[in-house]
């Protein structure tokens, strides 16, 4: 061996410092900072935003549903696809659970949650199956199922809507309960996010999603089970949307046929803003969750700051554009820097 054999990794003392720098530079950190900034500014305008029982509860509860949706959709985006049907899946599941309660008023809360998640997963299986078998881009398939599921929802509901009085009281109680001051639904969302994050970070199939999103042709060449992973990602996305639907039902009790409309935008926006690149291969569940928290907080903060909440969608759109432009500019700059570094003698 003629080449020098320095160790490949830097020594631990130097690495601690550089790891801290790396941590600070990450997208997730910026989002956290943005959240804090948002809360601080809004609280300055109206202190009850945070410093009141209701305010504190809303601050923590509002993001719960968004977090679950964003986490699910992140699975699909990381593998370089997109699921536009999550809002419709959520609404349909909410209505299904509500209808289930009407038929079976004594249904235990746990059963409702499990049933909803499974139902959503089933809808996700439809998406994933079509994408995997027909080799058609997820965007087109889920554009179709978005409207199909919504249409089924409206058909089923007709002109009726499900009222809180028709839902199981324990169920609703859970949806609005708190544990040591933190809403139960939020705790649920955080647990789900942690599990999902663990899965994406530590399992083979999770890592393969990143590989598929990073270089699909290379993934095929490596012999990775691309179709199977794609299917899995859509099932997860659907299941999360189903869970979000149950959470929605538990929190609000009143379910109309348009529940969940527009939520797909929030979910995808949250993920993209949180650092899950739309081109795949990059991003974390934590980022998607933080992005969801940020968006939900912005929603609540807008009226306080004097901006009509009708503008909320425009804000989300602008943020999405800003996030993807920023990602792209940074990526191009990084690439150029790396090549220039290499060119130095």
């Amino acid at each position, binding site marked *: 061996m003629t080449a020098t054999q320095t160790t490949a990794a830097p020594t631990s003392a130097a690495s601690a410092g550089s790891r801290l720098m790396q941590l600070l530079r990450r997208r997730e950190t910026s989002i956290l900072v943005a959240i804090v900034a948002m809360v601080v500014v809004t609280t300055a305008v109206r202190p009850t935003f945070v410093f009141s029982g209701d305010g504190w509860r809303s601050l923590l509860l509002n993001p719960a549903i968004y977090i679950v949706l964003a986490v699910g959709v992140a699975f699909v985006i990381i593998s370089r696809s*997109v699921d536009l049907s999550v809002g419709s899946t959520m609404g349909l599941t909410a209505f299904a659970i509500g209808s289930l309660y009407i038929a079976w008023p004594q249904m235990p809360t746990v059963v409702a949650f499990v049933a909803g998640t499974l139902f959503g997963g089933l809808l996700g299986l439809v998406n994933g199956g*079509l994408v995997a078998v*027909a*080799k*058609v*881009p997820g*965007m*087109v*398939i889920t*554009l*179709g*199922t*978005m*409207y*199909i599921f*919504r*249409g*089924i929802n*409206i*058909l089923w509901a007709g002109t009726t809507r499900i009222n809180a009085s028709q839902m199981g009281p324990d169920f609703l109680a859970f949806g609005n309960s708190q544990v040591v001051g933190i809403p139960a639904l939020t705790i649920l969302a955080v647990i789900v996010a942690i599990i999902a994050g663990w899965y994406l970070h530590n399992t083979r199939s999770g890592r393969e999603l990143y590989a598929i999103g990073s270089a699909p*042709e*290379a993934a*095929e*060449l490596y012999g990775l089970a691309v179709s199977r992973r794609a299917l899995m990602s859509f099932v997860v996305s659907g299941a999360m949307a189903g869970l979000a639907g149950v959470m929605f039902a538990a929190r609000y009790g009143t379910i109309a046929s348009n529940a969940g409309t527009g939520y797909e*935008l929030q979910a*995808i*926006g949250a993920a*993209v803003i949180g650092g899950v690149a*739309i*081109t795949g291969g990059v991003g974390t569940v934590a980022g998607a969750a933080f992005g969801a928290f940020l968006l939900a907080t912005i929603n609540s903060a807008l009226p306080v700051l004097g901006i*009509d909440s*009708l*503008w*909320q*969608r*425009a*804000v*989300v*759109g*602008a943020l*999405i*554009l800003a996030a*993807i*432009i920023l990602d*792209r*500019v940074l990526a*191009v700059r990084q690439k150029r820097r790396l090549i220039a570094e290499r060119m130095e003698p």
Partner: protein
Amino acid sequence: MTATTVGYREYGRPRWQRILLTREMAIVGLLLLTLLVAGLAIPYFADRLTVYNLLRDMFATLIIALPMALVMITGDIDISVGSMVGLSCSVLGLLFSMGVPFELSMVLVLLMGAAGGLLNGALVAKIGLPALAVTIGTMALFRGIAVGLLGTSTVTGFPQGWTDLTKYEIGYTGIPFIIVVFLVLFAVFVYLLNFTPFGRGIYALGLNSEAAVFSGVNRDRTRIILFVLAGTMSALGGIYWTLLRGTARGDIGDGLELQVIAAVVLGGVSVFGGIGALYGVVAGVLLIGALSSALRLVGVTAEVIKIITGVLLIGSVVAASMITSFQNRRKKVTAAPSQTSVAEPAPSGE
């Protein structure tokens, strides 16, 4: 003047095959079949009023499907068209309510549509972002601004001369006058796509953008122009809806992008780009319209129609994909080298 004695056959297949054995013809056939069956089976379908309503309802989809087809043939996509329709409606109402002369308002709205398209095009072509991501963002942005500007209020009282324009009929045929507008636009787009070098470049970009650039096609300029056209036609669609309904609201056009994309794909345009023809797209729009009309007459609600549109979209994409893979399997026997290998590095020799 000598006829080419030794020359190539121009076409590999006889003319009738070339024209009839296409996806577009299949959709035209399906359309005719639907019209026939509905006309015979459903009372009032073949009525003048039905045709009138159908065409009036489909006008916006028709005119937006034209540039959308071009965008998708290039390999891009634009899902912000529905939101631009809503934004145009909203801004038109706003300008009018502020006292701006109506004709000027319309022009300004068209310019705004072009500007929105320019935003999409610039982000996609110049910054290099994926069209889907950009248009998801602008879909939210445009719709958000539309709703934010008008809020929950609506604007009415538009000049009668203009709103009546959407009502006029051609004689007693049941065909609304505005179809003339569509036909003119159709002619323009057909000319653009099929009879100009620009149009040839669109197909080339969709099939092999690298080779297209190597042949002198200006990729950036072409894509931007197409997005601008999509935005402008969406604005025109928004103006139309405002005049049709007589009111301006911010939530018009919701779900329009589904209808347009479904029609375009149904009409034979490939989601992967490079393939498609405008007459197929028009047939696709009319097919969706005819189905909607027929179902409505039978008493089916609007939601079912949305479901059916979704099913048609998925169905046509899946069918196209299956047909392609079937064709590829047959061709594999004579496949030349690089087609089958996945990671083909710079060839060092054969």
